[in-house]
């Protein structure tokens, strides 16, 4: 009985939805395409939070649609075409692998605006956007270097791409600054999201003596592994992962796409949208530092927050010389800071990190 009633209610709700949809033709329609499920607790989850923030902000003036777990490649191209055909005005493509499909579809639909995350190809109706996560890594590195007792910090890399290498370098530089004896052990998981592989990597690093685990993968499995091991601390990645606070999770890097998404949707609504390239960090609010828990001593916490503020205000750049590359050659002179071009294509470790970047 209950079932029948729900069934009927669902049916009438859907009918209602259709009616209102037909009535409001001038709504701005915004599409989102996700590489993972919205419940991944990391990367896709935060993009979806951004979408929900757009709905909240604009209410009835904007309609959002999304398709999740879309493989990068021809499937993405089809989903994008489908959204464009169905009247989307603006589409956010939220993974690096959607780059070529986005460019292809954008060429076919010159009146639809596209926003591609973390890529490098633009056109008249394709903008790119990304976040300076390495700024957050600097704060993490500072806490990690101050907290480690074994002087071994484990790092779970996803893929050896500039984005991830930048994070490793930034964390290393700032850990080393507070603790010259610090050593990084890096494991490449070759996945963005695979709880089993991430847990294995975390366990292996802990066995090798690491008492701090940094991760560039999206699941909470490393947090669980650290909790099980006891005296190991971790940082939330992409999402706050507050369910593991105050320990092992002592802080986090949070992707905060909401302000950017709201801005760009407003630009389309107002008719002022232009193709741009955005790379924002802590200052613009795109990169958030999650609550530093009480496990971290008060003076370390104060230093970390001061570092965060300096980066936010632009007074300090996490890649400031003197810095050398791993092979000992000079990179940045005293006081010189890295240019964005080098950072975007970063394919080398800084001096002091051992091991090779896999090719």
């Amino acid at each position, binding site marked *: 009985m209950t079932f029948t009633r729900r069934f009927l209610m669902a049916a009438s709700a859907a009918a209602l939805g259709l009616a209102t949809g037909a009535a409001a033709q001038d709504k701005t329609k915004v599409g989102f395409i996700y590489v993972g499920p919205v419940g991944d607790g990391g990367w896709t989850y935060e993009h979806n939070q951004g979408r929900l923030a757009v709905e909240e902000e604009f209410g009835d003036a904007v309609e959002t649609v999304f398709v999740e777990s879309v493989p990068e490649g021809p499937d993405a191209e089809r989903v994008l075409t489908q959204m464009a055909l169905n009247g989307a005005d603006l589409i956010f493509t939220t993974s690096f692998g959607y780059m070529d499909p986005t460019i292809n579809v954008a060429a076919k639909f010159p009146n639809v605006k596209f926003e591609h995350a973390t890529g490098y190809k633009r056109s008249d109706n394709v903008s790119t956007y990304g976040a300076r996560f390495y700024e957050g890594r600097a704060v993490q590195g500072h806490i990690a270097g101050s907290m480690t007792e074994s002087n071994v910090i484990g790092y779970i890399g996803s893929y050896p*791409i500039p984005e991830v290498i930048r994070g490793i370098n930034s964390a290393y530089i700032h850990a080393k600054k507070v603790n010259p004896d610090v050593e990084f052990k890096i494991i490449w998981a070759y996945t963005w999201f695979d709880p089993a592989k991430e847990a294995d990597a975390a366990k292996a690093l802990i066995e090798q003596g690491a008492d701090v685990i940094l991760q560039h993968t999206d699941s909470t499995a490393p947090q669980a592994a650290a909790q099980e091991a006891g005296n190991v601390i971790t940082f939330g990645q992409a999402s706050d992962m507050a369910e593991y606070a105050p320990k092992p999770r002592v802080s986090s890097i949070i992707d905060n796409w909401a302000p950017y998404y709201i801005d760009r949707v407003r630009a389309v609504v107002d008719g002022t949208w232009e193709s741009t390239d955005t790379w924002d960090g802590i200052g613009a609010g795109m990169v958030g530092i999650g609550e530093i828990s009480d496990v971290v001593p008060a003076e370390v916490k104060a230093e970390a927050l001061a570092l965060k503020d300096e980066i936010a205000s632009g007074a300090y750049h996490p890649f400031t010389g003197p810095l050398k590359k791993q092979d000992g050659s000079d990179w940045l002179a005293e006081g010189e800071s890295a240019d964005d071009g080098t950072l975007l294509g970063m394919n080398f470790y800084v001096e002091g990190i051992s091991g090779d970047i*896999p090719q």
Partner: protein
Amino acid sequence: MLTLERRPEPNRRVALLTPIIAVVTTMIVGGLLFGALGTNPITAIETIFWEPLFGEFAFYYRPQLMVKGAPLVLIAIGLSLGFRAGIWNIGAEGQYIIGALCGAGVGLAFYPTESWLIFPLMVIAGAFGGFVWAMIPAILKTRFGTSEILVSLMLVYVAEQFLASMALGLMKNPEGFGFPGSRNLQQYASAHNAELFTGTGMHWGVVAALIAVIAAYVLLNRHMLGYHIRLTGEAPRAARFAGVNPTRLVLFCLGTSGALAGLAGLFEVSGPAGMVSIDFNVGYGFTAIIVAFLGRLHPVGILLAGLLMALTYIGGEIAQSNLGLPAAAIQVFQGMLLFFLLAADLLTNYRIRLARTEAA
């Protein structure tokens, strides 16, 4: 009370009907699922099955059915030969990857030379790559009696690591600012598996899939080897007495399915996908197993099953976007299809009897 009674002979009429029963049951139970999620079930089913074929934008979706269905059919045809003979290649996904890597590797090696010879060479390399990858479980099985199921499956993961290594290293686009992924073959005319007629979705992979369907049909019905395959599957002892050489059969079935999976990979990487990327493979090799069984291991059945599967993918995406259904609901829906098919299969060999229980 209901009891199951074994049929003296498998019922042929029921065997042909089971896919239809499975599809209809999936629609009903799937509809209930969608209803429970707050979506009008009729709208949902209509969106998935009707919209891509006859909806407003069918002009776009119909060609996409071929693009999505072609690799499934091509791989499933190869797998069905082995499955009929009781030779289980579960690793088509790996052969698909290696085929794509070999084919793309040949194309990229020639870049930027333009010649009509390049694409045919890539096709040969793609088939050869898949063939070699399938020969590993084949030779291990015939020489040492290992399980081709385990070996072929494990080699999928090896192939995936190999793919990641290629996308990040050897085949990485030198003009890609250090980002992973190869050059886009869609922008290299000699290596591009383009649409043969614009807007039709018809590319060489679709042509190859159709040829494979016809060739498999002829092989199974008109050829001694096809007869041996069927005989080995249906009556292994009789096959041995009839002089079927099991070693040759294993090599043939695994080799053919590997080569076809490799071809599918090559046509995909040089056409719709365009580039070697870390996540190039999206599960065609595994989905093709469902397609092979849904198509009753019959070439024409596989063709229809491949198109049906493609339809649920494309319709499923429309349902997600237009109706807000979660991806997981669509995947459950696809899973149901195989589940109900296997359940309905029971009716081929058994019949349901209403037996009266006597009061104790």
